[in-house]
């Protein structure tokens, strides 16, 4: 635990930040992974305001990463913003859910210019649009991709590879299921 005192002389601890976030931004219950790491869910409409508040008021000046998780069972994309405070040595991970049917989220490129690259990548890999983000429509790693975005879980990457890239015969496969069945449970019918 660190005892940095910033943000108006108050001690910065995960508890203080959580109470502040729940009072201001309707944050959900926190998930404390470590003393210095906390996951908090906020509504998507409040996400940019919460991030701005964390950055400008609580000193979380570092955006460690920004990614999305495809929760296809719940028809959601979970946007994941990992923020770090150098003064307090605390990580706070903000999570905001958006619908898979209309994957549009608010851009944060005005807070960190580098976030526009994350957003461009999310547009390409998950199909999540960030209106207003510069160059968000330009291809990033894929050029001329015409399938569903490849990091979505309903995209079958193996089937795509097999029908596109001329698989070479004779590859020896070490599938975990096969090995476990052979070595540990030969009698079980999987």
């Amino acid at each position, binding site marked *: 635990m660190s005892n940095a005192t910033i943000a108006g002389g108050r001690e910065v601890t995960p508890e203080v930040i959580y109470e502040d976030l729940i009072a201001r931004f309707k944050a959900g219950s926190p998930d404390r992974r470590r003393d210095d790491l906390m996951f908090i869910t906020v509504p998507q409409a409040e996400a940019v305001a919460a991030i701005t508040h964390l950055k400008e008021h609580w000193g979380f000046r570092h955006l460690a990463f920004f990614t999305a998780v495809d929760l296809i069972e719940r028809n959601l994309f979970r946007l994941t913003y990992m923020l770090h405070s150098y003064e307090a040595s605390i990580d706070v991970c903000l999570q905001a859910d958006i619908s898979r049917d209309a994957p549009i989220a608010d851009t944060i490129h005005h807070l960190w210019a580098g976030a526009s690259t994350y957003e461009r990548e999310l547009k390409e890999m998950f199909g999540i649009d960030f209106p207003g983000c510069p160059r968000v429509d330009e291809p990033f790693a894929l*050029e001329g991709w015409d*399938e569903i975005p490849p990091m979505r879980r309903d995209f079958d990457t*193996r089937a795509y*590879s097999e029908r596109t890239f*001329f698989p*070479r015969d004779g590859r020896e496969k070490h599938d975990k299921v096969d090995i476990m069945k052979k070595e540990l449970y030969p009698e079980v019918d999987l």
Partner: protein
Amino acid sequence: MSDATNTGATAREVIEQIDRARIELPELDRKYFCDEAPKVVEPYRGIVEKFLNWARSESLWILGFGTGCGAIELRPLMTARYDMYRYGIQPRPTPRQSSVFIIGGYASVKTMKRIVRSYEQMQNPKFVMGLGSCTVNGGMYWDSYNTVNRLDHYIPVDVYVAGCMPRPESLLAGFMQLKLRIREGRAEGANEYARNFDWYKANQKQIIKDWNMPDYNW
């Protein structure tokens, strides 16, 4: 997408830039660009070709283009410990000066476009070495959405060096194998590419969907 080729204008007249803006080449510049398909250059016979092949095998110039993680193995090869210069192998900065193209590991579709372009810019005779398992069968990325599985379907490959990733010693062994192949007159990749040009182009176009370059790259 490929406006430059679809409209019937040749590459000499119109080139398409990366941002899809088409510019017409001034008359004066057209002679510097080539839009002819590569041609087969029949080897000489007998002792002349043997002499040429000996000379080629003793002066292998690598294109300085690290295309994957395996390219990191070229650095120890260049420096004091493995010292590839003693075999007449040295890196060159442009495709026009190089004779060996080392594909250093996985080739994504985006890289493949640059690989094809660089390969076609190299002058005959040219040799390709596939470094690492990814060039053989996709390696650990065999079921990836973005990594080609068989390099030899896109450009002709002379020598494969398997491993993930191979040590510099394996690379040196690969170079020795390549030298042997050249001296035996079997390193005819450039002619093979010219003979099966349509097949290679069809394979390349199957994965490179935004084909915004001419069919033959200058």
